[in-house]
């Protein structure tokens, strides 16, 4: 696309932040609902807890890298903690709290699945207990972490929506869209992709999973449509940004990768799964790939289609 005010680096940051938060939310909901304990092994919580921390951390590093000044004088980031009027300060507080929580959840989940880790640690650190009340600890971590994960997912949208100079972004729809997309990509990664790879019929474990998927994809399509229609009706730079996405430089990426492969295809797979209570192994994985690709490109085309106001 012709005007890259913020480029791929920011889009990938928003994507990783969203998917990390979404993965945490999915895993934590499976944990809190007790679904995790209905089977001997739950790959959804394993992958969700395991990847959320690294994904968010990687995204944050990319953001610091993009800021430039953060590399030259990294201590400047401390200034960002003390300006409550800035949405970035909210974000940095949320991220600073969420990253350790996400890593803690990952470590607890791995230790829960592999009790030998604690036993091995006890050989050197004798003060450690024989076992830990993992479920109770994780319940607390997940409860706190879900709030922070929601904050992270919403923040990735708020970060753009406060830029009033770009009318396409300056919309309350964007945080909602990014939140739904975050949960959707989290499900795509944790369930459709990773968990399906580990246990091909994992989708059978969650009775309403296809319905949840359909609702999320439908909601995401609706919010995306609302964003673009609002921008078209608004006119000016907002409409020009929307046209750039719908019929301009970003149109193939939008219609093929986001709408076609990333939304309609997974939607149809889950409609089929909902009706037949099953879907194919490959179609499940491809559905996950599509959802994740859509999550990435939704953010990229919105970032890249920014046209600032005319003065």
């Amino acid at each position, binding site marked *: 696309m*012709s005007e890259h*005010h913020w480029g791929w680096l920011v889009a990938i940051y928003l994507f990783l932040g969203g998917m990390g938060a979404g993965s945490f939310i999915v895993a934590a909901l499976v944990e809190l609902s007790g679904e995790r304990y209905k089977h001997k092994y739950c790959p959804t919580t394993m992958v969700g807890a*395991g990847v959320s921390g690294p994904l968010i951390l990687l995204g944050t590093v990319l953001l610091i890298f993009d800021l430039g000044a953060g590399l030259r004088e990294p201590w400047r980031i401390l200034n960002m903690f003390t300006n409550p009027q800035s949405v970035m300060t909210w974000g940095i507080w949320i991220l600073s709290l969420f990253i350790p929580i996400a890593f803690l959840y990952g470590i607890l989940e791995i230790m829960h699945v592999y009790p030998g880790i604690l036993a091995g640690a006890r050989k050197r650190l004798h003060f450690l207990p024989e076992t830990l009340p993992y479920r109770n600890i994780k319940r607390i971590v997940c409860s706190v972490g879900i709030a922070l994960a929601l904050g992270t997912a919403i923040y990735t949208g708020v970060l753009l929506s406060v830029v009033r100079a770009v009318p396409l972004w300056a919309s309350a729809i964007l945080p909602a869209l990014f939140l739904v997309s975050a949960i959707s990509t989290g499900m795509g990664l944790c369930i459709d992709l990773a968990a399906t790879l580990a246990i091909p019929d994992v989708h059978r474990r969650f009775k309403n999973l296809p319905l949840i998927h359909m609702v999320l994809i439908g909601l995401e399509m609706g919010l995306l449509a609302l964003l673009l229609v609002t921008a078209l009706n608004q006119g000016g730079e907002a409409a020009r940004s929307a046209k750039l996405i719908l019929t301009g*430089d970003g149109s193939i*990426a939008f219609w093929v990768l986001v709408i076609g492969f990333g939304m309609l295809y997974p939607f149809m797979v889950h409609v089929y799964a909902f009706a037949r209570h099953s879907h194919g*192994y490959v179609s499940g994985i491809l559905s*996950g*790939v599509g959802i994740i690709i859509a999550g*990435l490109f939704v953010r*990229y085309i919105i970032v890249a289609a920014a046209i600032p106001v005319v003065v």
Partner: protein
Amino acid sequence: MSQKLSLRSIRKWPRWAIIPIGLGLAGLAIVLGLLLEPAAGALSPTMVAPTPTMPTIAYSGAQANGCQDCHFSLSTLQASAADPDAAETYLIEAESMVTPHGRLGCLACHSGDGEALDKETAHQGLMADMSAQEPDKCLICHEDLPDEIPGDRLKLPHGALVERIEQGQPCDVHCSDCHGGVGHGFDPLSGEKYCSMTVCLDCHQEKNLEIQMADCDACHLGPHDVATSLTCNDCHTSTEVWHEVGLGIHPVSLPGKHGETACFQCHQYPDFKGLNNVCTDCHESGHSDWGDHDCTQCHDPGGTWDMTASTWEGHIDHWDQYKGQHVNVACAGCHFETYDFDPNCSTCHQTPDNHADGRSEGDCVACHQADQPWVE
């Protein structure tokens, strides 16, 4: 069949392997996106690129390499300048391009043609100071400007200026008058000063503005409620450093080092009401069994620390015979042991021979007063 084989082999992997697989898949999705985007872009219908009406939002880097070719090099500037001696004025430090404003690129503020190969074309439509010629462009980013900065105790004319700019009215004051350094080296995050007060005063005098030097309250948010007794100038003698205080007046004399002590070492901040410290908070008392915290009852803070007992007017309240020649006696003349030592007349005076009848029994004041002739 091959699918079943591969599934079986996947299920034999350790359970933790799902984590690196998940991370890898996320990475693969990003790589796939990066690969697909150029292809998708190439297949997309090409629209007429929207005119970047305000390229100031582009954070991707400087947009005018042509400007840098000359303005980063003093020798190149000197070679092309009409006055080589003045060339340094137009030299831009390369580091300034990585500041927040520098990253907007030269053209964002100065216009011109960044791709032109000759100086004349490059400078066509050039704006030396965008804030003077097109101040509304500054407001794209700087819309919510504060009217007060409590941390710096400053009142600012931002609101009135923004209103005039938005209404298209001419302004005598431009952003660059105070924030001139922002484009070339000044970095707001570093916390450097925007401009000194001398700049404000010079400008106000030059333009004969209504607010002049004496109107401190017009620009400053003073913390002290002393308007009825003091003016700012009484203490604040510097227009450059607010904390540089020269003591203009003080209700009592502050001799010696006291005159060099910061105000709020002694007074309570911010309104000078009451004292924070008494003498013994700073000075060690030489006599723990005597006197109170107000050493000036006996000691003269302006002179030497040696006592001048006659200056203690309150002594008469403690001893009614502290009069006559007694006031000329040094303190230690009577209190030669400790200040708790309470002398009586016979401590210093011998009982006269004609009092051998024991009439006084040490209580001389029954008949005599220290400030009256003794013979009576």
